[in-house]
């Protein structure tokens, strides 16, 4: 089946078996291998990408169901020469060990900061009528869909908190 996607601002058209996940379409057909396959069942978060701006597990998306959608992968966030603020913070704080979960962690936290800015509550938000601040408790809950087998969670959390603080300062 013909599928048209806009991936990292570039229109792409593919001819795919309907069984192809968005993850496999990105990796095997568009050769964007930054997005990783971990569990392939929506449990680990390594495959996290943005679809129309929202984070999703690309392993649980059929590519044909996203005809016309905009997809952003880690390759669309920054480049080795020009890292995004979150990418730079992950390097600075050693937010990884083996690095396999890192693209998913960064895409997920990128979306998470926008969700916080939008005022979306989480399971640990005490007052549903108030705008949640990014505390460490909020960060842990909101990032629970991204696992790190190396358990580099301390560095991951430090990186996200620093990037969030920079974003707030820039906004002020």
């Amino acid at each position, binding site marked *: *089946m013909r599928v048209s996607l806009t991936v990292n601002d570039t229109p792409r058209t593919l001819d795919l*078996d*309907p*069984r192809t*996940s968005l993850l496999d379409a990105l990796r095997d057909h568009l050769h964007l291998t930054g997005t990783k396959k971990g569990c*392939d*069942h*929506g449990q680990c*978060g390594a495959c*996290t990408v943005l679809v129309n701006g*929202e*984070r*999703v*597990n690309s392993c*649980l*998306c*059929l590519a*044909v*169901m996203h*005809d016309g959608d905009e997809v952003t992968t880690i390759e669309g966030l920054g480049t080795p020469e020009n890292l995004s603020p979150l990418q730079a913070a992950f390097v600075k704080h050693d937010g990884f060990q083996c690095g396999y979960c890192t693209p998913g962690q960064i895409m*997920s936290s990128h*979306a*998470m900061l926008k*969700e916080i800015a*939008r*005022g*979306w*509550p*989480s*399971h640990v*938000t005490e007052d*549903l*009528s108030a705008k949640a601040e990014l505390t460490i408790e909020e960060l*842990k*809950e*909101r990032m*629970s*869909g991204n696992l790190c087998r190396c358990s580099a969670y301390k560095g991951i959390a430090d990186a996200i908190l620093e990037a969030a603080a920079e974003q707030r300062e820039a906004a002020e």
Partner: protein
Amino acid sequence: MKSFDYVRPETADAAHEAAGRFIAGGTNLIDLMKLQVETPEKLVDINRLDLRGISTEGDGLKIGALVSNSELAADLRIRTDYPLLSRALLSGATQQLRNKATTGGNFLQRTRCPYFYEPHQACNKRTPGEGCSAQGGVTRMLAVLGTSEHCLAAHPSDMAVAMRALDAKIAVTRADGTTERLALDDFYLLPGDRPDRETVLEPGDLITAVHLPAPAAGRQTYRKVRDRSSYAFALVSVAARIAMEDGKISDAALAFGGLAPRPWRDGAVEEILIGEAPSEALFGKAADRLLAEAKGAGGNDFKIPLTRRTLIAVLNDLTGESA
């Protein structure tokens, strides 16, 4: 994954005519297709149908079937007037999954019984008449109320438990075009000797919306007890609304998750509470009523005392001083 035909109709009529398995968010169905627990021959993608948006309807709300779990949980009207629903949604899955999962689909997610997920094990829900490997097996996550000798599976949804406490109604368009609104107890079936039949939906029937009645008085909460503090299914959950007047309970709505093949509500439990002053003895009596018929299968026996303690804790919270 088995191969399938894929169609993406633009109208509800075309969706019914397509006569296949509906898919919306796909977070559960695609996972089950990978495991070949589900092997639909045709997928009918309903994402282009006009089933989005949350609108006021009289004093209540109409929630389109394609509203995502994230959007519903974050909606200010839900957060303000139906907070136990926001709480239940936010306690389920992860943000990535909630962004995809839909309101209609959440009602229809399949059990997480490990034997259902493992095609090499016997499962009457997956293959009627095959037997139930859960009997005498690992039963920690399985049900203690409403089960049968043929099936011990628990319904996994948090959202549906909240909807049951809120007296939500599910709007269904039947394959022949007729529409109806079903209360959750008229929508879900208990397993009996046909655990493969989970709801009254027939092939081609489509959930189009959920209707919430006017907000009811009282304080609300959703308490979920699970094996880890995030991204885990409920061992036991309680969706509760309690209204107080002159030191007595004037109204109560209590629905339970993790305990049964469908969101569980027992009016007799609420009747014990209504009109009475809160006390440990009263709460214990309500818990006794709820669990009178509860039956463990070994590994899930703990759910019975856990439910009792969780219910009492919730009732203490909601009847205590401005907690």
